[in-house]
């Protein structure tokens, strides 16, 4: 049989192999979720979620993940700007360092934080002596661990957007008499807005789900450092129904935020 289709026609069917492999790829994400749903004790869910363990952890998770996202915004956006706009030696190294937390096992990050900012750490010891501030085993420790692990998402997204931005717009605004801050506020930020929001959402979601660095650096104590992922881990040893219920809460919250904000902002890209 010869092919009678028009070359390059838009009606051409996608190759079946791709569809099959794509669905197989999708199943990697869907199958574990289905497993979780199948294990969920639906009728007892309200009772299971009412316990102290869950409400304390939920509150702590929301507070620390939002705090980590705020810190990331304050220092991460300028860092992204530096990386995108300033030519300096060692920029490749800086880029590598920023990306490192994405590929490093979070436990390694947590241990590194402990050695740097622990009570006997490089920075932690003088900091503790000067101010009495102690990061490990404190809620601030959770925020620091979350920031370390999650900020790369923001920096990388914003840096990419800044590099793709046509600088002639900023140039034109400056020529027309806009000051540096006006250009930033009226031209640059609006143009990278969607990427900025996407980066913030990803950063928040990663912080919300952070486990390894948190338990290694900040420890595990209900109401102070025990976030939802840690509560799941602890509950797995004692009461699996509670563990499943908390996992479900995490999935629902994360998925809602990711879908709602991504759909709204990433379409613009």
């Amino acid at each position, binding site marked *: 049989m010869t092919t009678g289709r028009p070359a390059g026609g838009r009606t051409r069917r996608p190759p079946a192999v791709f569809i099959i492999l794509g669905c197989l790829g999708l199943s990697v994400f869907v199958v574990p979720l289905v497993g979780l749903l199948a294990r969920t004790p639906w009728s007892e869910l309200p009772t299971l979620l009412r316990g102290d363990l869950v409400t304390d952890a939920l509150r702590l998770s929301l507070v620390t993940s939002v705090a980590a996202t705020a810190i990331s915004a304050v220092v991460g956006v300028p860092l992204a700007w530096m990386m995108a706009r300033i030519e300096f030696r060692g920029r490749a190294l800086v880029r590598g360092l920023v990306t490192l937390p994405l590929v490093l096992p979070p436990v390694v990050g947590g241990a590194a934080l402990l050695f740097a900012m622990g009570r006997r750490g490089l920075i932690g010891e003088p900091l503790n002596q000067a101010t009495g501030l102690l990061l490990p085993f404190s809620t601030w420790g959770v925020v620091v661990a979350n920031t370390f692990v999650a900020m790369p998402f923001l920096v990388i997204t914003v840096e990419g957007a800044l590099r793709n931005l046509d600088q002639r717009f900023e140039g034109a605004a400056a020529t027309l008499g806009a000051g540096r801050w006006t250009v930033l506020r009226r031209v640059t930020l609006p143009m990278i807005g969607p990427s900025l929001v996407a980066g913030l959402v990803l950063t928040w979601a990663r912080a919300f789900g952070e486990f390894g660095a948190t338990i290694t650096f900040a*420890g595990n104590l209900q109401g102070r450092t025990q976030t939802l992922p840690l509560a799941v*881990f602890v509950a797995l040893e004692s009461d699996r129904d509670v563990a499943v219920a908390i996992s479900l809460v995490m999935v629902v919250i994360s998925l809602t935020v990711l879908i709602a904000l991504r759909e709204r902002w990433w379409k613009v890209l």
Partner: protein
Amino acid sequence: MSRSLIVALALLMPLLLAACSDSIGDNPARASSEDDLLVSAAASLTDAFGEMETAFETAKPGVDVLLNLGPSSGLREQILEGAPADVFASANTSNMEQVIEAGEVAGDPEIFVTNVLQIAVPSGNSAGVTGLEDFANEDLLIGLCAEDVPCGDFGRTVLENAGVTPAIDTNEPDVRALLTKIEAGELDAGITYVTDVVSTGGTVEGVDIPDEFNVIADYPIAALVNAPNPDAAAAFLAFVLSAEGQAILNRYGFSSP
């Protein structure tokens, strides 16, 4: 043609699965030959039994000791599922009892060592921890294992025995995680087994817990009914219980019963 291929694959499937499960499955008996002695021992005995193996092989040339180390409950399951082993050394009596009930133990098991809990503090003990009552001090950084892992369960029992309500700063997921934070000086004190303290080689110091509050774990050892090498099993048991064997165990912090 494609149908015959499917049929062939369907026929091959069980073979493939068997091959996979065989290579994945933990099958310590695979290498067993006449002179091998397979010892299933609790993970906490890893270092001590490593030295025991060398000493026994020197004393009994021709016997090759194979150590199968793991959590006592996992070793118990292997034995109950028919994985051949000559000797079983458990970190508690309950796992041994289940093996006895299944009729897998030859003769009576013997308690060959005991292990007790100890307060673990960083080298130098900068916080000056002297006993269990310090665990109630809000100003100290106190860590325990999480409530649902054995070291956390025992640690809480000890504190309860002493009537101390601890001011806990962290519940660590396992004893290694707890030791790491004590070793780094981030915690002032925690409760672990004395053998855990010894295993750090001095970076963690131990403070003894009075006997009346302490929890003592008995370690039983026994030869197994289906031992492929019963003579060597009996010799190994005798060696572990001998003065030489006990001296090795004592070096790793275990007490003789």
